[in-house]
C-alpha cells in the first residue's frame, strides 16, 4: 500500500505533462497578507471588469484587512455583504467573447497544476501574427493579455508584470480556500496532540502486554 501511495503521488506529479500544452512554471505562492492585498488591488483593477468571484463578499475583503475606503469605492452602492459579482452582463460577455468568463473564486483549485497553472497562463501570452496574441498554456483562450506581458518592452517590465501575476495568484489562492491558514495552524496542534497521545498509548500497551509470559 505504501507503494501504491507513492505511485499515486507519482501519477499526480505526472499530470502536467499531458494535461496542458506547455510545461507550467513552478512558483511558490506567497500567502502573506501583503501579497494577497496587492493581488486584490490588481484583480479588482484588471480582472473584476469581466470575471465574478461569487463566493467572496466585500466583507471578506474587509476582514482580510483591506482599507475600508478602497472597498467602498469598489462596491459602490452594493451592500458590504454582497458577493463580488461581475460588472459585465452575460449578454455583453457573450457578444464580446462568445462565452462567459469563468468565476474566479475557485480558479486556483480548478485546473490541473492549480496556482502554477494560473500563473503560467497569465504570463503565457506571446505576440502572434497580425497583431494578435496567443497563449502557450491555453491556446483557445478568449481572454486578452490583460497584464500586458506580450507587450513588455524589456526585462525589467517583464519582471514587474510577473510580480503582478504572482500577487493575483496569491489572492486567488486565498480566495479558493480562505481557511487554509487556520487549517494549518489547527493541524499542527492536532498532530502534536496526537503524537503525545499515541506515545502514551504505546506505553500503556507495552505495560499491559508485559504482564504476559
Amino acid at each position, binding site marked *: *500500500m505504501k*507503494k*501504491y501511495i507513492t*505511485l*499515486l503521488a507519482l*501519477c*499526480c506529479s*505526472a499530470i502536467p505533462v*499531458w*494535461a496542458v500544452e506547455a510545461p507550467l512554471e513552478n512558483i511558490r505562492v506567497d500567502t502573506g497578507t501583503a501579497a494577497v492585498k496587492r493581488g486584490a488591488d490588481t484583480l479588482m483593477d484588471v480582472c473584476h471588469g469581466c470575471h465574478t468571484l461569487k*463566493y467572496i463578499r466585500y466583507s471578506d475583503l474587509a476582514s482580510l484587512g483591506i482599507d475600508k475606503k478602497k472597498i467602498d469605492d469598489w462596491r459602490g452602492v452594493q451592500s458590504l455583504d454582497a458577493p463580488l459579482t461581475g460588472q459585465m452582463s452575460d449578454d455583453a460577455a457573450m457578444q464580446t467573447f462568445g462565452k462567459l468568463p*469563468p468565476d474566479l*473564486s*475557485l480558479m486556483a*483549485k*480548478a*485546473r*490541473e*497544476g*492549480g496556482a502554477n497553472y494560473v500563473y503560467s497562463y497569465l504570463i503565457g501570452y506571446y505576440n502572434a501574427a497580425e497583431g494578435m496574441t496567443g497563449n502557450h498554456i491555453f491556446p483557445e483562450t478568449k481572454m486578452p493579455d490583460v497584464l500586458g506581458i506580450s507587450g513588455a518592452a524589456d526585462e525589467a517590465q517583464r519582471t514587474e508584470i510577473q510580480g503582478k501575476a504572482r500577487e493575483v495568484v496569491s489572492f486567488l489562492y486565498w480566495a*479558493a*480556500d*480562505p*481557511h487554509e491558514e487556520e*487549517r*494549518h495552524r*489547527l*493541524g*499542527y496542534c*492536532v*498532530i502534536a496532540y*496526537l*503524537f503525545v*497521545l*499515541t506515545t502514551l*498509548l*504505546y506505553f*500503556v*500497551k507495552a505495560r*499491559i*502486554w508485559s504482564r*504476559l509470559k
Partner: protein
Amino acid sequence: MKNKIVKWIDHRFPLTSFVKHELTGYPTPRNLSYWWNFGFLAGFVLVLQVATGIFLAMHYKADIALSFDSIQHIMRDVNYGWLLRFMHSTGASAFFLVIYIHMARTLYYGSYRAPRELMWWTGQGLLLMLMATAFMGYLLPWGQMSFWGATVITNLFRATPYFGDQIVVWLRGDYTVGDATLTRFFALHYLFPFLIIGGVVVHLVALHTVRSSNPSGIDLADKDNIPFHPYFTSKDFYGLGIFLIVYCIFVFFFPNLLIEPANNIPANPMQTPTHIVPEWYFLPFYAVLRAVPNLVGGVVAMGLSVMVFAFMPYLDRSRIPGGARYRPWYRAMFFLFAVDMLVLGYVGYVPPSNQTIVVGQAATFLYFALFALLPFASKKEEQWLIKRGLPPEVKALMAGEAREISKFPHRRRSGDKP
C-alpha cells in the same frame, strides 16, 4: 462490585454477561500482528464517516441549482465546515485504504479458509456496499467529475440484456444524470451507511462464532488465547493513534490531493472534461473495464474482478496452514497480484494510449489468470511442500490442527473432503 442500576438492567437484559462474553473476556489469539488492527480501524472510520456525514447533511442541499454552492457555503461560512468536509472526503479514501489492507491481510494469511467463509463473504458484501456508497456520495458536490463519473458509470448498466436502456433511466430517474439522480443518490448515500452498520454486526457475530484467525493459520489451543480487553483494546487504540496521525496529515495539510481539480468546476452537461477518471480506489477495476474493447464484456469483467475474491475459499485447495507464510508459491502469487493491482491502478489513471491499452490488457489477463491458476497451483504446491519435507514448526501446527478437528468435526479445513 456491581451497582444497583447494572443489577437492575441485568435482571432484564444480559448486559454484564454480554460485555464479559464479547468484549472483556472474549478470547483472542495472542500472536495477532498489527495487520489484525485494520478491522477495528475500518469500524472507526465508518463511525467517523457517519458522524461527519450527518453534520454535513444539515448544511448540504440536494438540488442541482444549489448543491455546488452549498458545498462552498460549508467550506467558507459554516463554523468548521471545512473541517467536516475535508474529514469526510479524506475519510472516504481512508476507508478504502483500511479495507484494502484488511482484505490483503486476509488473502496473505489465508483467513478466508474454512470455517471463516461467511466472514469473507459478508466482508465482500460490505465492500460492494461501501463502493456503492462512495460512488453515490461522489455525485453530491455536483462538480464536473461528479457529473461525468455518474454519467459514465450509470451508462454501464446499458449492458444489461433486453432492459439495458430502461434500467439506466430507472437508475437516473431521468434520461440524463440530473436533479432526480442527485436527490435519489443523496437519499441512498444517507441510507447505505446504516445498511453497512447492519452488515458489520453480521460480520462481527460471525467473527465471534469462529473467532479471529491468526498468523499461524490454525485455531490455537485455549492457552494461547488472551482476553480481548485489556490486551487488544490497548493494542487497537495504539494503532488508532498511528492511523489518526496519518489521516490528520491528509485532512489538515493535503486535503485537496484527493479531490480532482475538475470537481471544483460546477457540473456542465454541455462540456465533457478531456479526461474522466474515477477516484483512486476504483482505478484498478476501471482499468479492467477499459481493457475489454466490448461494453458488455468490459462490464462483466469489471464485475467479476470485484466479485472473484468471494471464490477464494474454493480456489485455494492447499491444507498447509499460515497462508502465504509457509507457502512460497502462494506468496509469490500474492505479491504478483499486489503489483498487478498497482499496474492496473496506473493504467486506469492515465488517458488510454496504445501502450497503456496493451499493458492494461496484459495486467487484466494476469489478474484473472492468477485466480484461475490457484486451484492447481495450491494443490501442486501442497504436494511439493510435503514431498520436500515440511519444517517441524509447520508439522506441529498441522498436527495441532488435526487434533482440534477430531475434537470439533465442523472445523473443516479448506481442501478437506467433506
